[in-house]
């Protein structure tokens, strides 16, 4: 409770002993360091999830393969889905949001720095707990086994009757922890955007990235809570003998589906909207034009956030809703195509008439546009309920969502890595390696996920550890698996590039891309206090105004 303690900033730049460095990172409340922690942690889990994906694909390379047992296979896809969504993709977008939002709105830190640290560690420990199940899934003294109920864990498979032991409990508890962590971070981001903007930055002058992350935070707050509530109910069932989802006592399996997807659908937009945010920053800078139709982009984002709260039951077209119910959810789901389409077209219009520079971040964003288009259109196919009665639960769905998540989201995240790496590390990445990564990954992606649509149309269900020959699925599965190899190599190239560039890359300077938002006005990496004096902005592109005093944006806004 002592009074403010003075520390000297310069100490940080000198080489501190390892323990000190570690201590600094563990106790930090600086949003930039927490952002980087989030990102590194997420990369680790991306590798875990990727290794699980590789195991899945090896098992499915040909019919009646026996690479792993059915039990192990089921654990693999459960852990793969859970890991990728909750411990890779979410922390990645949170990490970037943490790092970038305060910088881009000209703030010194987030609104609740300590809550920020707490949330990160809660999420991190949640992930550790989940993976501990490999060792202690049956309790500390039993043999290990990871959860195997699928990432949406439909009741009653999760009841004590059908999943004895503790593996499902690990799943619940890990998600409970990380869910609370996510809510904390989301509250922090939303409050930061609302309260910490620098002088002159009205809501209408915020960079799109801040707007989109604000929407994302709102979605997290409203959608994580239903999941948390449902998990609590499941815990009551499993530990206290409750009957929420106990079908023998009149409980309802469908209720869980509703609760899960009320979370689950907004969740996919929680991932997608920050991806849109990266694209909305990267595409303008490399096209050398402002984003086309800023107000409409903001409105479309809010519309997506809003509509996405009312479409959840499109994951439940096959559970036997009334025809009126089905029709309603067809309508709301398809309605999302409109604001999403506006975004796609506005990005296109941003490129249109520009002078596009194809550096690695831009390459990833162009591929994103193209792939997200296809992915969205397959989403529309699924949204046509009768079509979904054929496609639901098949590999077509798996293809659809990997197309969105990998082809859309992961691609922009890679783009974001290359774009902001100079800012975060102070060093330039290796452009040649970046391009190798891009082309390898794109080739692998298309080999894997383009051809994954076909077995879906030919009747191959998902989550099967093996399949019968003679159904016309064999050749496609072979190709799909080969594609993963490319993706794995590409990912290694990517990680290698990051490491190499961090150590030996050439010094980047504060503004390597000739950018327009505030983060490029401070040093790379930014000092702990971000800005020596709080900037004062007058338009959406404050750095454009400085660079072109004869033709500033604020003249027009």
């Amino acid at each position, binding site marked *: 409770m002592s009074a403010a303690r003075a520390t000297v900033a310069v100490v940080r730049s000198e080489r501190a002993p390892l323990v000190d460095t570690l201590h600094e990172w563990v106790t930090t409340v600086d949003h930039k360091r927490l952002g980087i922690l989030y990102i590194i942690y997420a990369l680790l889990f991306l590798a875990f999830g990727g290794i699980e994906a590789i195991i899945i694909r090896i098992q499915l390379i040909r019919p009646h393969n026996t690479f792993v047992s059915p039990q192990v296979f089921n654990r693999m896809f459960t852990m793969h889905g859970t890991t990728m969504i909750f411990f890779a993709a979410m922390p990645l977008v949170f990490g970037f949001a943490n790092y970038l939002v305060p910088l881009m709105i000209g703030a010194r830190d987030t609104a609740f720095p300590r809550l920020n640290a707490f949330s990160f560690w809660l999420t991190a420990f949640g992930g550790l707990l989940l993976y501990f199940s490999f060792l202690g899934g049956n309790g500390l003294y039993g043999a290990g086994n990871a959860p195997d109920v699928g990432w949406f864990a439909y009741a009653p498979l999760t009841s004590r009757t059908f999943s004895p032991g503790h593996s499902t409990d690990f799943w619940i508890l890990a998600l409970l922890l990380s869910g609370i962590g996510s*809510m904390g971070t*989301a*509250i922090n981001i*939303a*409050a930061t955007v609302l309260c910490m903007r620098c002088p002159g930055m009205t809501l209408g002058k915020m960079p799109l990235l801040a707007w989109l992350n604000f929407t994302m*935070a709102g979605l997290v*707050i*409203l*959608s*994580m*809570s*239903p999941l*948390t*509530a*449902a998990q*609590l*109910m499941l815990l*009551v*069932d499993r530990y*206290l*003998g*409750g*009957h*929420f989802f106990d079908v023998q*006592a*009149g*409980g*309802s399996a469908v*209720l869980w589906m509703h*609760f899960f997807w*009320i979370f689950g659908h907004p969740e996919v937009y929680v991932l997608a909207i920050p991806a849109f945010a990266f694209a909305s920053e990267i595409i303008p800078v490399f096209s050398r034009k402002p984003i086309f139709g800023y107000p409409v982009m903001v409105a479309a984002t809010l519309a997506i956030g809003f509509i996405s709260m009312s479409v959840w039951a499109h994951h439940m077209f096959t559970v036997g809703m009334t025809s009126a119910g089905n029709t309603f959810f067809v309508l709301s789901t398809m309605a999302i195509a409109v604001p999403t389409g506006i975004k796609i077209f506005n990005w296109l219009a941003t490129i249109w008439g520009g002078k596009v520079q194809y550096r690695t971040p831009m390459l990833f964003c162009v591929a994103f546009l193209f792939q997200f288009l296809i992915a969205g259109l397959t989403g529309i196919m699924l949204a046509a309920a009768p079509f979904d009665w054929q496609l639901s639960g098949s590999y077509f769905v798996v293809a659809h969502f990997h197309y969105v998540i990998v082809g859309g989201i992961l691609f922009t995240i890679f783009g974001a890595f290359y774009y902001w790496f100079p800012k975060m590390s102070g060093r330039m990445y290796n452009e040649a390696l970046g391009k190798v990564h891009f082309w390898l990954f794109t080739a692998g992606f298309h080999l894997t996920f383009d051809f994954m649509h076909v077995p879906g149309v030919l009747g191959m269900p998902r989550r099967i550890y093996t399949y019968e020959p003679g159904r016309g699925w064999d050749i496609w599965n072979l190709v799909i698996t080969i594609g993963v190899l490319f993706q794995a190599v590409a990912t290694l190239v990517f990680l290698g590039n990051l490491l190499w560039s961090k150590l030996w890359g050439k010094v980047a300077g504060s503004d390597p891309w000739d950018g327009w938002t505030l983060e490029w006005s401070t040093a790379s990496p930014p000092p702990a206090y971000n800005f020596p004096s709080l900037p004062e902005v007058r338009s959406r592109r404050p750095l454009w105004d400085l660079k072109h005093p004869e033709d500033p944006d604020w003249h027009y806004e």
Partner: protein
Amino acid sequence: MYFLIAAEAAIFTIFVVAYIFYVGKSATGPQPAAVLHAPLFLTACLLSSSLTTHLAVRGLRSRNVRRFTWWWCGTVILGGIFVAGTAREWRHLVYQDGLTIQTNLFGTTYYSLVGLHAFHVIAGLLALAVVLVFAIRGDVRQEHSARTEVLSMYWHFVDAVWVVIFTVVYLIGR
């Protein structure tokens, strides 16, 4: 805080939905109409405690630390009565009526919903009590009124949730 409350409200909504969904679906065991008696006194206590926090914060804002302490103390006591009353009601349900969380769907949903709320009341009470200790020690001054206000906002929220629960569980759900 508003965001936290939004999140909490969403959690409660899900529990309330589950309660309503399962009303009347229990195959066996005691039914709500038979065992629930509307706890009017407790409700009155909880609702008036909202008023007392409000008065306390008003007192603090006008530099009247004494008034703050007394009203705050009143809030803690009223909240305490509520918790104690709930505990008694539960005892009665468990031992006299044989309703536990395992008995039937009603038991599961009832104890979960009311329990979740009681948990929030207790958490709130702990926080209130800590502040009370500080107040008695004389550490609370006017500049803290913003923080106490946040706490009182949380307390109002907990009360508002109780109004919903009371309506759903004791009025409609029977």
